[in-house]
């Protein structure tokens, strides 16, 4: 980001640079929007607004994926997250009713704020590290553009990562079974545990 | 013959697994009982075979089987017997057979009950034959686990409390022991640069005097809790009162001996200097336990509790003999372990029979059973007399040897008179409470509500007759037992330390 600002200040502009700057500006703007949207998620008192902000955040991220040359993932992000998952959220909110949540400055919240602030600072320190790994990948931008993002991912997935892929399918199966059992058998009253 | 010991130790365990996998339909337990009895009797026969094969002139471990177990750490499956463990293995096998035979009557989930008892037997025998310290520890814990379930599930009264207390108390001790075992190995490694868990080799280690005490405490606590020695006994009354009688036979007869066995096997050879410093205190505690247990036993009205406290008293005597640290004391202790195993188990069987018949164990409610049960009267009398140390019966021989050992002990020189007097007081008290128990239940006019009680049946007679025969036989001719124990004890007392920490300054070489 500092780089971007330097370039902006130096005003060393040509066509390539302008497009580059524009793209960078776009990325920056979308990133900031994502951050703001995520702030919106956690700051809105009503879940429905949170859900909407989350959609915004996901769309932003999908755009960022697009800008970082991951067209396939961007599509998946939109379909799976913004589509399926968020719809699910909205359904549940509709089902349970969205009550407003009282906010207070309890110890819990303050402590959470403190810790998360620390965490944030620590995470930011990772920015100071810089490049740690030399670029040696073989799937360059050109290659991807040549075969198309979906195909590239498909080749990679089915050639190198077949086992995680299958495991993921297994996970989905388990999730399905779990949901069915939750929906079907969990009508018993929960027992209050006694101290002893 | 090479794998006889392995066979004896694992036969009950295999039988236990077979029993657990056997299907029992609607309490038709005959098949399970047959397997259990068969296995336990085969084990006992095997143990008798061990006696035949055993060479009583030889002091070291015999019939050793050694198989590599964990090669990285040099842990071996290594078993063998010497005279001391031979006695205890035979005792355990005998009591195991008794316990199984006694647990035939109807009981919930009988097959698991039998299987756990067999596991307990297996673990206990394993402790006595293990020659690798890690193997020893594994068997030590294996002995504990079945007991937890046996008391917790089939017990009576406040059983969960009792079993929890017992297991936690014992477990604390045995974990300390594990630390101690590893520590000894490390010290041995420092001295010789060889990593081994082999017990006979480890016993050769001369442990530096300054750390002996701490190491000794690690071991001692485990054994003192298991035995138990006086202030560490508080699990015993609860556990014994809650424990079902068949389990109690093994627990009091064999399992508690594991503590004494550990003291003899580890503490005496490894830590002569710590014992030289602390033996007197421990012996005093043991003597205190003799009097204390007997004194409280006198106040009990519950027969089971009475025998439980009397066990504390008798086990105190065993501990006292061990810490006399000389031949007579230790031989007497080993003999007394056998004797107490026989006597206490017989007493518990009798209590169990009475309880089954009369539905009570309260001394105040039982009167004059002699009229109804003349055979039990005779047997009970014999066992009572043995328990209170009547000469001519086995209890006396052990007591005499122990007290003689204490009297002549160099370690306990200053206090020997007092200790023997305390033990003597314990014996006097023993006569009081045993007679309370025997006369209270058996004599005086019969309580009318018990006038349809039947005498012993054949099964119960079969349980008690072997004990009676042994009580008389050991009393009249203890030499065979002593002959087998004696070489091992002598060897242990005069052991030359091969691996010395500090040159010629060897301190107490063998304890004398």
């Amino acid at each position, binding site marked *: *980001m500092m*780089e*971007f600002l330097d370039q902006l200040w130096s005003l060393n502009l040509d066509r390539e640079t302008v497009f580059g700057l524009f793209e960078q500006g776009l*990325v920056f703007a979308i*990133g900031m929007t*994502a*951050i703001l949207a*995520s*702030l919106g*998620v*956690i700051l809105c008192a009503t*879940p429905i607004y*949170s*859900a909407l902000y989350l959609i915004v955040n996901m769309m932003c*991220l999908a755009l*960022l994926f697009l800008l*970082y040359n*991951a067209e396939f*993932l961007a599509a998946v*992000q939109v379909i*799976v*997250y913004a589509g*399926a*998952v968020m719809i*699910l*959220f909205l359904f*549940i909110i509709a089902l*349970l009713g969205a*009550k407003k949540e009282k906010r207070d400055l309890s110890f819990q*919240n303050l402590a959470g*704020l403190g810790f*998360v*602030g620390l*965490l*944030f600072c620590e995470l*930011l320190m990772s920015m100071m590290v810089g*490049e740690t*790994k030399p*670029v040696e*990948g073989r*799937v360059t931008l050109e290659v991807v553009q040549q075969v198309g993002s979906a195909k*590239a*991912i498909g080749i*990679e*997935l089915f050639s*190198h*990562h077949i086992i995680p*892929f299958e495991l993921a399918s297994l*996970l*989905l199966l388990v*999730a399905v079974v*779990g*949901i069915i059992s*939750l*929906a079907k058998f*969990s*009508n018993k009253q929960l*027992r*209050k*545990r006694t101290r002893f | 013959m090479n794998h006889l010991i392995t066979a004896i130790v694992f036969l009950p365990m295999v039988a236990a697994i077979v029993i657990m996998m056997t299907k029992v339909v609607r309490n038709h337990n005959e098949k399970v009982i047959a397997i259990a009895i068969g296995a336990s009797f085969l084990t006992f026969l095997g143990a008798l075979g061990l006696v035949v094969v055993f060479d009583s002139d030889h002091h070291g471990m015999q019939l050793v089987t050694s198989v590599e177990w964990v090669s990285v750490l040099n842990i071996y499956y290594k078993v063998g017997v010497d005279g001391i463990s031979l006695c205890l293995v035979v005792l355990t096998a005998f009591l195991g057979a008794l316990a199984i035979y006694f647990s035939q009557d109807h009981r919930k989930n009988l097959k698991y009950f039998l299987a756990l008892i067999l596991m307990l037997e297996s673990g206990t025998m394993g402790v006595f034959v293990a020659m690798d310290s890690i193997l020893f520890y594994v068997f030590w814990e294996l002995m504990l686990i079945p007991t937890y379930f046996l008391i917790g599930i089939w017990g009576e009264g406040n059983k969960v409390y009792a079993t929890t207390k017992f297991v936690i108390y014992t477990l604390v001790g045995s974990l300390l022991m594990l630390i101690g075992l590893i520590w000894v190995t490390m010290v041995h490694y420092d001295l010789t640069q060889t990593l081994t868990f082999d017990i006979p080799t480890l016993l050769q280690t001369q442990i530096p005097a300054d750390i002996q005490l701490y190491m000794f405490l690690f071991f001692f606590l485990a054994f003192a809790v298991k035995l138990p020695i006086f202030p560490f006994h508080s699990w015993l009354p609860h556990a014994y009162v809650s424990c079902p009688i068949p389990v109690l036979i093994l627990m009091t007869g064999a399992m508690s001996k594991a503590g004494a066995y550990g003291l003899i096997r580890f503490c005496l050879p490894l830590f002569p200097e710590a014992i030289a410093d602390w033996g007197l205190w421990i012996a005093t505690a043991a003597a205190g336990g003799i009097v204390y247990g007997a004194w409280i036993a006198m106040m009990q009205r519950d027969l089971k509790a009475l025998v439980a406290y009397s066990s504390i008293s008798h086990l105190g005597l065993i501990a006292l003999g061990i810490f006399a640290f000389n031949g007579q004391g230790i031989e007497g202790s080993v003999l007394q372990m056998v004797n107490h195993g026989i006597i206490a188990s017989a007493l518990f069987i009798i209590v169990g029979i009475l309880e089954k018949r009369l539905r009570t164990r309260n001394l105040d409610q039982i009167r004059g059973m002699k009229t109804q049960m003349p055979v039990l009267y005779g047997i009970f009398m014999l066992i009572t007399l043995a328990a209170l140390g009547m000469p001519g019966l086995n209890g006396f021989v052990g007591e005499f040897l122990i007290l003689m050992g204490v009297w002549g002990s160099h370690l306990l020189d200053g206090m020997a008179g007092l200790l023997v007097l305390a033990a003597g007081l314990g014996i006097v008290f023993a006569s009081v409470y045993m007679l309370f128990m025997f006369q209270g239940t058996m004599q005086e006019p019969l309580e009318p509500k018990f006038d349809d009680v039947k005498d012993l049946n054949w099964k119960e007679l079969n349980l008690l007759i072997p004990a009676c025969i042994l009580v008389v036989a050991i009393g009249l001719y203890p030499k065979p037992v002593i002959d087998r124990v004696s070489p091992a004890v002598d060897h242990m007392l005069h052991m030359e330390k091969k691996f010395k920490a500090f040159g010629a300054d060897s301190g107490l070489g063998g304890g004398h």
Partner: protein
Amino acid sequence: MGSEFVLFVSATVFSIGALGFVIRKNPLVMFMSVELMLNAVNFLLVGYSSFLNSLDGQIFALIIMTVAAAEVVVGLAIILTIFRTRHELDVDHINILKG
């Protein structure tokens, strides 16, 4: 834009997600916060995948999405079940795991 920007955005979103998870009481919002955190990581993976010319990151992200989807579905089902039995949704009141 360089890797710092990716790091910055993902760290910020991640922290915000964590904050949301800690301070919010509504389980739905908490789940959303979890999604935020997951997405933040996904973004990091995708961004670095592009920098490093490797597709591994994207595949990782793909699988995370799968997991996240499964997690959300199961989680929402659990929330629904809890709501059915307790008729409220304040996580502070759901403390049957109390020791």
